[in-house]
């Protein structure tokens, strides 16, 4: 019954997430809503990570595998995107480098700003 109970909790969260996703006026993936719901359940101690351990391990371990069919779908549209394929690879690589630089700069900037605040607070103005 243990795993069945875990599946019931996760499926329930997914189902409620889909309901909310349908009501929301903005496009919001139901999985992300479910993610927020489960996070709230964890935060308010309604549920413990270990309560879902077996199912979570299964889903996390096989996560990459779950994308196989979605990736295979490319064969249906490959003729349409053939010409965009090289730009697509180029865009993926260039934007990843830019994103890395922007993120690192933002984190460093924030840490420096916090240190500066701390120093300023210590010195009475």
């Amino acid at each position, binding site marked *: 019954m243990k795993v069945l109970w875990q599946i019931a909790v*996760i499926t329930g969260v*997914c189902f409620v997430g889909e309901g909310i996703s349908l009501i929301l006026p903005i*496009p*919001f*993936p*139901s*999985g*992300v809503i*479910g*993610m927020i*719901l*489960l*996070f709230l359940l*964890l935060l308010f101690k309604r549920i413990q*990570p270990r309560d*879902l351990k077996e*199912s*979570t391990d299964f*889903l*996390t371990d*096989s*996560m*990459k*595998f*779950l*994308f*196989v*069919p*979605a*990736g*295979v*779908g*490319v*064969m249906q*549209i490959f003729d349409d*995107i053939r010409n*965009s394929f090289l*730009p*697509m690879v*180029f*865009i*993926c*690589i260039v*934007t*990843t*480098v*830019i*994103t*890395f630089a*922007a*993120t*690192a*700069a*933002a*984190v*460093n*900037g*924030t*840490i420096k700003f*916090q240190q500066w605040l701390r120093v300023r607070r210590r010195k009475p103005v």
Partner: protein
Amino acid sequence: MSDWLSSPFFGISLSIAAYAIGVLIQNKLNTPFANPLLIAIVLVIAFLSIFSIPYEDYNAGGQIITMLLIPATVVLSISVYNRLDILKKNWLPVIVGCLAGSVTSIISVLLLCRMFGLDDTMTISLLPKSVTTPIAVGLSEQYGGIASVTVTSVIITGIFGTVFAPQLIRLFRVKNAVASGVAIGTCSHVGGTTRAIEIGETQGAMSSLSIGIAGLLSTFIMVFIKFL
């Protein structure tokens, strides 16, 4: 024969077999370029093409696997929750970093797609490419993109992150472990994170934390951009 192959068990078995071969090849070659997911996709496509099996027959089982992506997204919150301590200690830099990175990613993809003259469907499919796949696919579908193009772009990004994370750290002279961890997770999700874990414990934890946060923030940014 076609009745037999349209059984959902065909698609599921073929997917698992192809993925198992992918894992085997990766273990043998031991290079991030031999991505098991990429190998599995190529193998399944080759198999279906060689035996002229219609995609619909394969997808009878395939869609059952795809359905599991939603619960897989939901349990991502557990990995954020498990790292709540380090998030509390560094919440401001982590959130500012993920936000800056996600905005940069989405805007730079948008601009480059326009530059290359890609159509809207293609652009929408590429927008979430730095986000972890389950969220990226959800976003792409919600906005009218093509899920399989999104999956491909996320894989390319992930492989690039896995291979070049240390070079990126050196290129931009990032000395702070928190900064490099968040940057790797935000720009290249799980792919980069596997490498970040090898670089150091802080980098790995920060990187995996950023996957969930950047994914969530990207969802909001996409909503925001839609209204512009």
